[in-house]
């Protein structure tokens, strides 16, 4: 069974441009999460989507946005890129969430975004 898949593996963008990262969850999972792992800042929660809707958002500016498609895949968009946006972006997925179920979250291998 395929795990969480992400594309592209690496992306280089210029400051001010937009970046789009894509994620396909594990088959049967409806929840998708995005995390940022930047040097010196550790792993930080970005977004959670479930059934096409944004359910929770971390402490990031509005230029970080995303969406979830009917097939449960997801996109993360980062507008007006800044140098400090350079990081590994990890996508993850889990089974349908019922309130607070503590369902295990499974991660992909990440997309490296470098802003120059």
């Amino acid at each position: 069974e395929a795990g969480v898949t992400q594309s592209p593996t690496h992306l280089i963008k210029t400051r001010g441009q937009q970046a789009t990262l894509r994620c396909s969850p594990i088959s049967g999972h409806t929840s998708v999460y995005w995390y940022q792992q930047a040097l010196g800042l550790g792993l930080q929660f970005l977004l959670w989507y479930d059934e096409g809707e944004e359910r929770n958002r971390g402490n990031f500016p509005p230029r970080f946005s995303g969406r979830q498609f009917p097939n449960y895949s997801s996109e993360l968009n980062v507008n007006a890129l800044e140098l400090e946006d350079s990081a590994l972006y990890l996508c993850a997925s889990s089974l349908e969430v019922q309130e607070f179920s503590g369902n295990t979250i499974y991660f992909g291998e990440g997309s490296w975004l470098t802003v120059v």
Partner: protein
Amino acid sequence: AQTVTQSQPEMSVQEAETVTLSCTYDTSESDYYLFWYKQPPSRQMILVIRQEAYKQQNATENRFSVNFQKAAKSFSLKISDSQLGDAAMYFCSYMEYGNKLVFGAGTILRVKS
């Protein structure tokens, strides 16, 4: 906001020996979930073990076990019979409402042959 503290930036263990990684967390909730993830050089986060706070029994997964002390808000990971493949960064995490995982800073585990 909940916080997770891993006080050991780096640990070393001899192959086949046992090592314990420490983790403490801060929360006012009574029901929550705790996880240990490992991140090898490939950078993929791999689930090691999961603990439900309402369960007093410590979780175990083969060579991996936890010592969950709810009152002390402590959640340490014990790795028995360490193997070279265990070398990785280990993250302790707490799941809060909203399905948000809060991670500690991580502990680099080195396994010596």
